[in-house]
């Protein structure tokens, strides 16, 4: 845990944080609103005492109540991974500003998050499906997309709140429940 980084980040981004700044193991976690993503990431990338030059990962997350986009960044100024969570994106119309103006390589990562979660990245010039076929309608990694059979059911029977609400028994055999396009 890099305490100095925590102080620096709290001083710099204190007014845009939407949750507490958490640290565990070698990770530091920021929570911001989706509209602040371009400004915060530009500051993290450009400012000389931060210099987060490497985008280590971009992931979509569906918590069941809302969507998140999670950025992992690396910098030579700190020994920690920095995790920036754009939190509270509505599930029925997920929209986030794109960061392809900072990292051109984020284009395909955003395409993947769009393909799997339906998150629309505003400003990405090429936001189309990347893995699934073009006529596919649902978003497979959303939590209301249930696997048709339990190919890998664990001993714990997956006691998951979301999946209990939509009991798999209600799904017709052999079909995949589709979300709205």
């Amino acid at each position: 845990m890099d305490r100095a980084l925590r102080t620096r980040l709290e001083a710099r981004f204190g007014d845009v944080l939407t949750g507490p700044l958490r640290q565990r193991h070698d990770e530091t976690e920021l929570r911001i609103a989706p509209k602040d993503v371009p400004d915060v990431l530009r500051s993290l990338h450009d400012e000389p005492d931060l210099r987060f030059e490497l985008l280590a990962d971009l992931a979509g997350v569906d918590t069941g109540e809302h969507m998140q986009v999670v950025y992992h960044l690396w910098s030579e100024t700190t020994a920690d991974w920095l995790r920036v969570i754009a939190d509270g994106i509505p599930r029925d119309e997920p929209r986030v500003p794109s960061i392809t103006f900072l990292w051109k390589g984020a284009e395909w990562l955003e395409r993947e998050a769009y393909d799997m979660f339906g998150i629309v990245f505003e400003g990405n010039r090429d936001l189309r499906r990347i893995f699934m076929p073009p006529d596919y309608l649902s978003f497979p990694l959303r939590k209301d997309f249930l696997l048709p059979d339990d190919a890998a059911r664990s001993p714990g029977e997956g006691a998951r709140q979301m999946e209990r609400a939509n009991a798999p028994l209600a799904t017709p055999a052999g079909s995949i429940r589709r979300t709205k396009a």
Partner: protein
Amino acid sequence: MTTKTGQHPSADDPRVIGQHPSADDPRFIGLHQSADDPRVMLDDGVGVYEPVPPYPPRTEREAEFYTLGEGEMFLNAGPHHPATHGVLRVVMKLDGERIVDLDPVLGYLHRGVEKLCENADLHQTIAYMDPLEYVSSLFCEWPAVMAYEKLLDVKVPPRAEYIRVLTGELNRISSHLLAMGFHALDLGGITPILYSFIERDEIVDLLASITGQRMLFNYFRIGGVNGDLNHDFMSRLGDWMSRAGSEVMSNTTLLNENEVFVRRNRGVGVMDRETALGMCWTGPNLRASGVPFDLRRAHPYSVYPELDFDIPTRSEGDSLARYLLRIDEVKQSLRIIDQCLHQMPDGPVTAKLPRLLRPRPGRAFAAVEGPRGEYGIYAISDGTDQPFRFRIHDPSFLHLQSFNVLAPGGLIADWMAINASLDPIMGGIDK
């Protein structure tokens, strides 16, 4: 003409030479008459692959790509193409023999590993990691177990960490040897891949003697590894190490001094430092562009801080630099293996853990330096025995993306060299 039974075929048998089949014949639904020889009926679907998709463009970029300019044409390569390192389709827009633009089409190998892992328990997910980058499976398992160990606050015994590094570096050498061999194969040289396979075969046999499998090892466990080093492994590794350095290096002289190989790679697919960072490159490809970024030093994990090795870099950033850098890395990996054998402590190889693991709710990100770059896992636990979210980050995905930057302006043949030097593995890209 007689059939096997010796009887003459009936007059309406279409196999009779000289009798022209007609397309209206109900027996030939789905076939069409060949233009070259009217007696030959061809399958309608074979030999016809329309590169332009049969639906309106979804984005501006797609519309721009699938509009031909003056004197341009489309060429479709793949999905079954020997130089695409897997099942990849690339649509190229050509002007003569020069590539104007290209559009990789992915998803032919998509299995939904992330979704499968979110419906499997923690131990089961490790087996799903292996077939991702099937030539360097240990580096796919490694970040997964590291992420779980962070979620569970498990301390891995030092002997297990040394075994992970030892087997990992062996796996790195075998992966690099394969990359170097296939690089030559893609450019038309058959011999180097055969020499690569001699050493690689020895390594996969070594790893099979402790893991039980040649390619998909499923060897790492949460909190350690599955099984200690055995006598068979140690004696064969000792034999191999005594000759590995000279053997690997003598094989590389086949290519390094080959004028055809060098000329086809030098100055091809040049990537500069800033663009490489912008395209989120990592691993040997980034280091060949002059950035000394190696997670083993940049974000140390396991026992790498205790080991002495260098991070080779090159400034040219072309295909040849990416190839030569892999040779330098093999030398460093041999150094690391040597130190592991000398410094390996005694002790247990797994931490004591219950069989059913339920980590407390939380998030963890772990990344390792694989043979292709940063391999990362972001795991979210919701308190059950299954990961709530399991994100796999693959470096090849981002390297493949830079085709659009590297290939335009070059020849079709240069595209082969660029593809081979980036060394993408489609199993990991398509997940």
